[in-house]
């Protein structure tokens, strides 16, 4: 139970190993995403005692429990609202939110918008696997068009949406996207997001092999991961010029950042200082 990890990144220093093996399905991308997060925490030198991880409901919500930190598994869609209270109460804590595409974009969509707008110093990892995995594979706001889920028996007819664009438009200080295959790049992106003084929204392209992959014949995890690689491009490539080959117009990497005032700093400056004078 020591809080001082070794110099080299050893993931077990950050895991509640007594809970392993974890509950996630074989090949679930959430595990890789968790590694990238812990790796980033290690490289940033963030103390486990000072780290609070808030998650919602769904597969993404269960991931936080494996982190040896102050972990809160809250209600469906509300981790950002919960984290807002936690961070305002305890600005000294590093607060990370783990959420999923259903949790964050459907039931919790309103909280996402306003968390971005407030620009509180919280890092939000959206583990996007395009499906409600925990409840058995229902369609989510990011399910690719025409894909089959247990509630789209004839293929998804609803358009998917780009959470990063939403986050950017709502004013998030930092917005990025990366796939699990690029683990070191994902780690670096998380590091960059956590270092940003403001709300950092990071979409992680995860995969749901067991439910979503099977339902749509997307192959095993390796195939699903490789398929992501074919569909997403680093922003460095300049998506807007890619006219010929454009399977999905989604870029990875740091997508936007701004220098809006961080919320707790603004609160101190505009409210607390005036109240005491």
């Amino acid at each position, binding site marked *: *139970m020591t*809080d001082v990890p070794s110099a080299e990144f050893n993931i077990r220093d950050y895991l*509640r190993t007594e*809970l392993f093996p974890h509950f996630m399905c074989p090949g679930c991308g959430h595990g890789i995403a968790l590694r990238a997060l812990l790796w980033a925490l290690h490289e940033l030198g963030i103390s*486990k*005692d*000072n780290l*609070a991880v*808030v998650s919602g409901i769904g597969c993404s919500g269960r991931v936080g*429990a494996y982190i*040896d*930190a*102050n*972990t*809160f*598994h*809250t*209600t469906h869609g*509300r981790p950002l*609202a*919960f*984290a*807002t*209270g*936690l*961070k*305002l*109460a*305890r600005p*000294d*804590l590093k607060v990370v939110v783990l959420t999923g595409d259903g949790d964050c974009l459907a039931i919790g969509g*309103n*909280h996402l*918008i*306003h968390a971005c707008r407030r620009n509180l110093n919280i890092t939000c990892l959206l583990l996007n696997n395009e499906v409600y995995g925990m409840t058995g594979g229902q369609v989510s706001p990011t399910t690719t068009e025409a894909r089959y889920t247990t509630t789209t028996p004839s293929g998804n007819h609803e358009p998917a949406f780009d959470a990063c664009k939403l986050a950017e438009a709502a004013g998030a200080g930092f917005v990025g996207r990366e796939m699990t295959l690029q683990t070191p790049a994902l780690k670096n992106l998380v590091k960059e997001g956590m270092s940003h003084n403001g709300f950092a929204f990071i979409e992680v392209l995860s995969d749901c092999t067991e439910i979503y992959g099977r339902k749509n014949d997307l192959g095993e995890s390796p195939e699903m991961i490789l398929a992501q690689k074919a569909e997403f491009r680093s922003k460095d490539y300049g998506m807007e010029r890619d006219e010929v080959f454009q399977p999905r117009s989604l870029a990875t990497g740091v997508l936007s950042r701004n220098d809006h005032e961080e919320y707790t700093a603004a*609160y101190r400056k505009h*409210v*607390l200082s*005036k*109240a*005491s004078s």
Partner: protein
Amino acid sequence: MAVPGLRHHREDARGRGLNDTGIQNIQGNHACAVAAVAAGCRFFAGYPITPSSEIAERISVELPKAGGTFVQMEDEIASMAAVIGASAGGIKAMTATSGPGFSLKQENLGYAAGAEIPCVIVDVMRGGPSTGMPTRPAQGDFMQSRWGTHGDHACIVLAPWSVKEIYEQTVRAFNLSETLRVPVIVLYDEVIGHLVETLDPGSVDTGEITTRKWAGGDPAQYRPYACGEDDIPPMARPGDGYRSHTTGLTHAENGFPSQDPTTVDRVARRVLGKLARHNDLVEQVDCYDLDGAQVLIATCGITARAAKSALRLLQDKGIAAGLFRPVTLWPFPEESYREAARGKQQILVPEMNAGQLIYEIQRLTPPGVPVAGFNRLDGEPITPRQIAERVEELLNHD
């Protein structure tokens, strides 16, 4: 000016704690906000809704002066979640709302009950259901306050009947919530929320301000939901080295999810039983003229004040009536009620709804004693005369 002991004051005196201003005329909702800060509340998250908005407005002035944080969230659900988050971070936190907003908070209220996170929720009742009559009073949330969230859960509901009592019960709500790790609801109607009354701080009795029990000792030995004889587990404050897990799933004493029937049953029974175990702290009733009364009136909030006036009207007519008022509405003070009801010939439950409290009263009243209701659904308060007339009518029917 020749009025001793009084300093400059305005009714909406921004930023003055009760003790700073001395005797004052203050609105119920403002008293609630001032009391919360006095009780140690340092976080408030809310969303505007009539008739509770004055609480948020006042506390947005008071909290920053105490170094606390006020945030207006994007909705009622977020407010409740933020309050639980802040409390999980280790500070006293509160939200306030009215009927429709209270419904939206129910899911997270269940979370707070399940995870045993202290928090205070104020519900200022208005006419319902739905948007109903936002500016008119009602007492339609008696049952929602107890059974609004899902599943078996422990929670405390306090029902003040005056501005002074709003102050006292708000402080008490924090004390109980902190001591027992349970969500506490302060429930009153629009009449009392908007009522301005003269409040003398010298007459206010809040007792000692208490704070939750914090985890101490070796972090390696800490189990978040393990507790001693008192059934109240000490809480870990993030940053103190305990690194515990909090979840809305059924959990074992170590805080991690469990579906083991024995464990689930054991933990559930402790949580549900802890209020009964501390009933001396939880229960509070207020009774008048019980001795020798033929009729017992049982009600709370503004209707209880009408009933108290009605006692006098009835006395003038030679009818001996008593009043039983649960200040702690839930858990319902069962034994105290049975005691109060003993020997009475008629029970009357006036309430500003179609009949809610009456079910609890019927359940607890000895067989053979008639229990009648008097209900108003028109957004108008029940008057003392109406209660008196109803009592007379009931007695004449005998």
